[in-house]
């Protein structure tokens, strides 16, 4: 069985490396992008099976990437987990930031710092 490809988008390299290492030690193929521009290129190049996305990033926010992703038919079914420090106890008011009802919310939200088991469990549930 081929390894599932997961793209991690976070402007904090240490965070990205951490999430990447967890995945690679659990038999996933992980990729990292530190900004939205290169993330979009990565999506086109590697066609990931799942995306872990940070929200608060300098040049463009995670929402801007998420909206573009969902608006492209070829990528609109890629599951997304939002991993951010802005999430409070797993709760996040998605509609406060993305009011367009045609854009469906992401599959999961995870608060930083992530609990490794929780992170892996969410990924597993989405990829199976």
């Amino acid at each position: 069985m081929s390894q599932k490809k997961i793209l991690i988008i976070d402007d904090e390299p240490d965070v990205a490396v951490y999430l990447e290492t967890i995945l690679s030690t659990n038999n996933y193929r992980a990729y990292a992008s530190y900004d939205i521009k290169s993330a979009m290129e990565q999506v086109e190049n590697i066609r990931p099976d799942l995306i872990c996305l940070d929200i608060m990033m300098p040049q463009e926010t995670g929402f801007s990437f998420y909206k573009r992703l969902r608006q492209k038919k070829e990528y609109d079914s890629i599951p997304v987990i939002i991993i951010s420090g802005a999430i409070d106890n797993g709760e996040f008011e998605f509609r406060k930031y993305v009011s367009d009802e045609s854009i469906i919310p992401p599959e999961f939200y995870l608060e930083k710092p992530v609990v490794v088991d929780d992170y892996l469990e969410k990924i597993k549930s989405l990829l199976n």
Partner: protein
Amino acid sequence: MGKQNIKNTVTQIDKNTKEQIYEELYQQVPFNVAVIDRNFNVVDANNNFTEYFGQWENKKCYDVYKKLKKPCADCPTGEVFKNGEPVVADSVGIDQHGRKTHYVAHVFPIHNKDNDKIDYVMEMTRTITETNRWQQEYQILFDRVPCYVTVIGEDYRIVRANEAFRSNFEDALGKHCYKVYKRRNSRCPNCPAAKTFKDGKVHRSNQIGIGKGNKEIHYQVSTSALMRGSGNVAHVIEISNDITELKRLENRVIEAQRLSAVGQTVAGLAHSIKNILMGLEGGKFIVSLGLTKNNNAMINQGWEMLERNFDKTTTLVKDFLSFSKGRLPELRLISPTDLIKEIVDLYKDIAAQSNINLCFEIDSNIKQAPLDPAGIHTCLTNLVSNAIDACLMAERKGTQVVIKAYEQGDKLIFEVIDDGSGIDYELKQKIFTTFFTTKGGGGTGLGLLTTRKIVQEHGGKILVDSKEGSGARFRMEFPRKRLFSLYREREV
């Protein structure tokens, strides 16, 4: 020849003509004239009197003048009959239309032919109602005007104080203004009244005084000269607006903004801490993995992550403390040139190592300014450090950072200009918001926020002008008037 003619004319006036002249004088003199006998009967009066007080025949003087049924308590007429000496008195009566009237009465005795008895008195009254009304209106205006008004003499003693002043400050009359306004024992520095005594011009300033019950009173004072004939300023009138309430409201608005900023700041701080925690967790995870696998490369990688995130914690705490300091700028008269040279010295090696040309352009006529040296130093180091980062991000060789200082009208301008990576529109909207950083893990997002805070504390503003890919110009503007006003306030 002429004199002769006049003399001749005078001698030609006969007794009848003379009586006619006296009668004419009696009628036309601009006074109300009445003749009163010992029983207070008005026995004669001129036309002015009749027009003013109305019909007087067969009436007592107190009835005509004051519409009373019995003689007045302080009757000047009775006094003249008694003492035989003229009397001048001011009094309040009622005219023929029932209006209250203020007048000055000159009362003269009219002796009999043998000059041994006073049969009548002549009472000449001049109304001062209008003058009195103006005086009263001015008094009301002086007392009730909603600001503090005092008149001070050359010895700085208060000679007049209005009601508002009297009710808010301690007893004032005869005391030194600095004692009453500020409980000082000597004249205040930058005293606006002293300036007015010196040049006769209007001077204004903001002051803080101590009122009754030791209440702090903030006021804006304006001093004007009260000139006397010679042109010397003998008195100065001080008119002050109480701005204590305004200051209180201003402080409340600042406090509300501060609380709102505290909310944003705490949320931003939590976000930054969570990222650092995640980096620490990551370092711990990778070190642990490296130990399990006996993989030195992994151990080193994890250890570096731990070190980096501990450093970030230190930087965040330092930046946060610096940002949270709610202090007023410690203004001192300093040279902007010296300050810029210090910054260039500080960064020249770092810039050179990255092949960045760091230089400065300072206007030759730049003057000293009241600035907080530490605060402006922080602002310039933040801006120069950002500019160097922007040059590094440009990934081009031969980039440049220029620090400029010049005067523009009333403003002192500092600029930090780079030809680095520049900032796009979306970014410009966010750069002054809490915890925003373009440096990923390298920044805390507090630098520009702290810079803006310091500039605003100096009464200035910070502007950014940039396009993505074509560098950036950060401009700090400090209006000199505002700087000096803050400087004086601090001195007071």
